[in-house]
């Protein structure tokens, strides 16, 4: 166990997997020379060989297209999106090629690609560099979507993603990169498709993932002081969703708040809420509550951005309304 940042945990996962399997390589914009815009690839080339960490031209279409081709030729590529916002450029490669090929060729080939995508609001990064777009990918069959909230899962999920024979989109919230956590050394795999209870409680379940999970933990602390015992469920994987864990917790607490940084409309929270309503309606002793960003682009103005931001007290208020 060692205490390292989320960013260092992803680097450790990359290094271990690349040393374990010579087929693994990584490509993206500014990852070799610069070490990634958030430093998450720093010195990777010197650790595993410069030829396996490839700087590409500024073309997401080329990056994902090349990754899919390499995967079909037997490699296990990791592609970096620089910002999740740039997915727009390469969506045909993502959802018509990467997600469909294994299915359309009747399973005769596999597409073991990982696309890493730093997402979420930073400080004043404006509308085109602050988005959380995970819901797009949850809507596409053929892609797995993982969303670590801490350093240990950052490592464990990245290693599992690289070993998966299916395409995986790996969302890493930029605000999490500097946050430290205890990370198991060596072989540590977080299973894809398994949520985890981060904090046990009995009165209300706070369901979240990625950076918003930390706000849920803060909210749970506040609620505890007011006599409300909140359970915090970290989804960790958004596709496939761990329906069993969601329903078990809701059946236990009878109340649920779903929180995420992405806008509320059409968000992952809507899917989770629908599953609960379909499968466990009569376990509910209160309406399902969602806490998410307003349905507007993320503002550039610092004042407006602060007003836009979901804070722990919003989660606390939503939870208290359920009693």
């Amino acid at each position: 166990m060692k205490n390292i940042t989320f960013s260092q945990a992803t680097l450790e996962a990359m290094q271990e997997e690349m040393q374990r399997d010579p087929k693994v390589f990584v490509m993206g914009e500014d990852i070799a020379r610069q070490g990634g815009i958030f430093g998450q690839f720093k010195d990777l080339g010197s650790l595993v060989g410069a030829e396996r960490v490839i700087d590409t031209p500024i073309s997401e279409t080329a990056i994902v297209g090349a990754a899919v081709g390499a995967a079909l030729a037997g490699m296990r590529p990791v592609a970096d999106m620089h910002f999740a916002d740039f997915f727009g450029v390469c969506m045909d490669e993502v959802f018509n090629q990467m997600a469909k090929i294994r299915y359309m060729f009747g399973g005769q080939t596999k597409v073991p690609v990982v696309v890493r995508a730093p997402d979420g609001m930073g400080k004043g990064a404006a509308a085109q560099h602050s988005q959380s777009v995970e819901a797009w990918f949850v809507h596409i069959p053929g892609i797995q979507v993982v969303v670590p909230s801490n350093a240990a899962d950052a490592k464990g999920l990245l290693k599992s993603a690289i070993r998966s024979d299916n395409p995986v989109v790996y969302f890493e919230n930029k605000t999490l990169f500097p946050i430290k956590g205890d990370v198991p050394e060596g072989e540590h795999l977080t299973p894809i498709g398994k949520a985890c209870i981060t904090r046990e409680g009995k009165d209300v379940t706070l369901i979240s993932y990625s950076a918003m999970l930390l706000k849920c933990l803060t909210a749970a602390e506040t609620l505890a002081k007011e006599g409300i015992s909140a359970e915090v469920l970290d989804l960790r994987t958004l596709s496939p969703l761990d329906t069993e864990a969601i329903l078990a917790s809701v059946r236990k607490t009878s109340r649920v708040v779903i929180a995420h940084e992405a806008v509320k409309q059409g968000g992952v929270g809507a899917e989770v809420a629908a599953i609960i309503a379909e499968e466990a309606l009569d376990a509910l002793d209160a309406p399902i509550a969602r806490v998410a960003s307003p349905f507007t682009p993320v503002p550039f103005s610092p004042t407006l951005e602060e007003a836009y931001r979901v804070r722990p007290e919003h989660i606390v208020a939503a939870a208290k309304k359920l009693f």
Partner: protein
Amino acid sequence: MAVNVLMPKLGLTMETGVIAHWKFKHGDAVKAGDILYQVETDKLTNDITAEIDGVLHIKFPEGSVVPVAQVVGAIAAPGEAVSFDGAPAGEKTPPAAPVAANQPAGRGAGGAGKVRATPKAKKLAAERGIDLSGLTGTGPDGMIAVKDLDKAPRIKTTPLAAKVADGLGVDLASVSKDGRIFKADVLAAHESAQVPALHGPAEVQAKVRRMPMSAMRQAIARNMSASWAVSPMVHYDLRADVTALGELKKNLCLGGKKISYTDILIKAVSHALKEHPLVNAGIDGNEIVLHDYVNMGVAVALPAGLIVPVIKGVEGKGIGEVSDELRELAEKALQGKLVTEEFSGGTFTISNLGMFGIESFTPIINQPESAILGVNAIVKTAVEAEGQIVMRPLMNLSLTADHRLVDGAEGARFMARLREIIENPWYMLM
């Protein structure tokens, strides 16, 4: 800061308590440790003491039925104002909400029509037979939530019982029963409602006194009526020669410990029960519940009623242990200090009226058990032995068994075996 005085939860199953008696008046000064009020549950009376010094503010008067954990009053500093806001959760005499709760849907809540309740509350209400229309919602957005259901009595019925009740116009709330209400319970309630009221000419009425039933008396009335209604009872009498039992008792007492006939009988009966599991069983719906242990209830008479403390796991205990435990439970019973766990969970009951010279009686089964043994006086009786008339101490045993489970031959076999063990108490060593 005022400190609230609450209705305590005195046992796992306690849901409400009656404020039997306030020892102080509203506005009196009290000291920490003073007994504030007495709470009466189905079978117990407990004293509730003050936690701090101050002035007592009373929210609910004597006789109120209050759900556990509800505020019944407060202790405040002199001059401090205390307000008990929110709707009162308990009310004078049987609460108004439960009565309303059993009116047909649509008539509650000022005829407001649609009932707003959470899905879970609706589901539980349906399971428990609670009509939501009379309840006030305190959940999110004023909805009726699960916590509000506790304000209504839990009425569980079989579909047939509900239909019969509807047909006869029997209010299910008036059917006194702890468990699920069956058709037989509804019929019994209907019949008892037909008993003419106790009225008479004025000069007679002047000599009639009325007093409220204590919670314990109500519980006894309810439990006995329910047992009578639900169990077809068969009675068995059999006399046992207790010469050997008397010897055993005498010799055990020589060890310095006072052992009673009841102590030894508890062991003897438990021995016989192990061989006759249906007599140590119960009924739950369409299932027979058999017990691989014997939890022996022993009826203890109290000045104001009756309680049946239970000795758990008799089959694994020695006579000395049984004797100690029974003495301790009986003392606690007399002091009203038994907790629910100590008078529940029985699988069979013994009731001993021998000390009054009773020679035979028909005890009523302590539900949900399947039988009860009445123990009678030991009477010196002339009997024939080897062609001679000799005097022998005989004890008559009176068994009441539920014929749904215990057929005549089985009841008789149990009694015969019990007599065998009593007359040859060394069998208990086997």
